[in-house]
């Protein structure tokens, strides 16, 4: 067995190096670094974690341990239109689960998955603080309030080409 190769585009490598450097390559800044990196790449695939690990001199297993601990970090690319359903308590008691089920049915994917065409991904989040509008659905940055299951199709259609 020779050394493990991690392949990455030069541009991306430099970006990650830059980010790590902006945090002085300090291991305690790992989470900040991951935030910035995910902000840039949209997700944190293995090769990116490898580079971050090298730059911060942290075992890559630890980086992975951190990435998988925090629900904000994802190793999968999100869809072009990430759909997030708030499942905070206020939304729950106002029927968020039915809305979620309807999204799953309409998109044919489970939570955490992306549609085959890469258009939509589905996730749940806890309370965006728009409890007055419960149940709340986010598509990208746009917020939909008081969503009912029968309104789901219309929301999806808005984004269909």
């Amino acid at each position, binding site marked *: 067995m*020779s050394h493990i190769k991690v*392949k*990455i585009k030069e541009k991306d*490598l430099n970006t990650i190096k830059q980010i790590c450097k902006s945090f002085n390559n300090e291991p305690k800044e790992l989470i900040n670094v991951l935030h910035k990196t995910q902000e840039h790449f949209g997700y944190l695939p293995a090769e990116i974690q490898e580079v971050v*690990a090298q730059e911060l001199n942290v075992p890559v*297993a630890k*980086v*992975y341990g951190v990435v*998988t601990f925090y629900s904000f970090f994802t190793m999968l690319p999100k869809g072009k239109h990430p759909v997030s359903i708030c499942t905070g308590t206020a939304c729950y008691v106002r029927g968020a689960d039915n809305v979620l089920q309807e999204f799953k049915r309409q998109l044919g994917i489970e939570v955490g998955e992306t549609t085959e065409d890469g258009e939509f991904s589905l996730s749940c989040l806890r309370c965006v603080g728009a409890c007055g509008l419960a149940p709340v659905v986010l598509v990208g940055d746009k917020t939909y309030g008081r969503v009912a299951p029968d309104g789901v199709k219309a929301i999806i259609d808005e984004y269909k080409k």
Partner: protein
Amino acid sequence: MEKVKLTIDNKQIEVEKGTTIYKAAKQLGIDIPVLCYMNLEDLGIENKPGGCRICVVEVEGRKNLAPSCSTEVWDGMVVNTHSMRVINARRTVMEFILSDHPKDCLTCAKSGNCELQDMAVKLGIREVPGQEYAEMSEYKIDFSPSLIRDLDKCIMCRRCEMMCNEFQTVGALSAFNRGFEAAVGPAFEMDIEYSPCTYCGQCVAVCPTGALTEKDHTRDVINALADPTKTVVVQTAPAVRAALGEEFGLEAGTRVTGEMVAALRRLGFDYVFDTDFAADLTIMEEGTELLDRLTKHLNGDKEVKLPILTSCCPAWVSFFEHNFPEMMDVPSSARSPQQMFGSIAKTYFADKIEVKREDLVVVSIMPCLAKKYEAQRDEFKVDGNPDVDFSISTRELAHLIKEANLDLKTLPKEEFDTPLGESTGAGVIFGATGGVIEAATRTAYELHTGKKLEDIDFKQLRGLEGIRKATVDFEGTPINIGIAHGLGNARKLLEDIKAGKSEFHAIEIMSCPGGCIGGGGQPLHHSDSGILKARMKAIYEEDADKPIRKSHDNPYIIKLYEEFLGKPMSEKAHHLLHTCYFDKSRKVEIS
């Protein structure tokens, strides 16, 4: 030291401030059950995440139950370790743990030696309610050359993670995921083979369940023994004889060298040899290399690299290949005793008994799991045929002996075969931390000074401290020697060398706590460091009992050089007994 008084189960005791309830209770003879907690006292290795919650006790005035492993006592504390509340809680927690643990105990590699099983017995668990609909965590099983990971059996005690990161600083393992999905493993749940794992096996040595076990080669060995076309040769590492007895109920530290030889013979090995012979050979090569570099250095050669580092420990070799590829010219190029043995067995010895290489099977009995991986390395193969065919651990040997209906205790003591079974005390002490360098010193001193060494015991090189330093006077030339066991300690010495701050001429490094006696293939110590100390004592006793105690005095070694190798570091020796190292660091490449 400030003292505090407390009451545990109605018994009064006075202990030092800062003592935990668990330790205080132990002083009273109360054995509070623990699962995740592990303490190798003399080595400064302690695992107390407070995670399993089995050791909870009731403390008067406290709202909830206290984990005794990590709760410090206070003056006037009143503890109850077996109230109804405690017993109910402990059982319920145990039921939780078992509800997420496979129940295939009968066929589990850890059966009979499993701390979780023992705990279920101790608590008298008879059923796990709700199991019908209880989801269990599922992971794929990871087979590597040395160890097998079955995370379904992981109970998140975190001992392996602690050993891998804090003690070894290898960083191959980390907890990943969260909550019910959490487990311990390499990044991206990749096979451990692709991680920076060195196969030191310390994770296996501390795992309380069957989640981490060695890759079992006993079937391969039995098949070889049963094959009439094969001549099967066995070599046994020095640390094995100091620990094998434990598997047969003997007290730790009981030497069973003769009984082991007898058992091996009865198992059907054609030749029972000793790795110690190869250890002596290692000293000849490594010691000569040390002297060579040293002499050049003393003569002002600026090119020569010092200190020289030992290279007998395969996990250590992997460690610097992974982490210090730029320093691969620092360690000695000498192969480990296991590989030297294999190489000589399949050339010199095979010729001697006129057996073709491919018909000779070399089996090694090792206290180590990294040796399994080492035996498979490509550079130790000739046309695909490995110098060492199978490497099995002390534990696997015990299984083989038991399976053959042999009781080690009642076997007669027998002697190793010649020529590769003859060894000196110097070869024996390879099994304990500091032993290799002590053996090397015995030889190097005499070769360098040309004088006979009067006091052969370099006691200053022995002990359990993580990093030890000693200066040996080579007749006016002070030689600075460093010793580290545990890769975390090794890393410190390496960082010093890298920074040009190292004061040493020679350094011995062993990966495991206490050296090979604490190897990942040894009978489980179940967090009793007294066992390691007893094994260490046995090693030095064995050395003291040997008639010859310096490697260069071994008559068969002398003969080997005369008949076959020429002299140390000769071209032939280089070819058969030395190796080179490979950069295994993780490299980022532009795609």
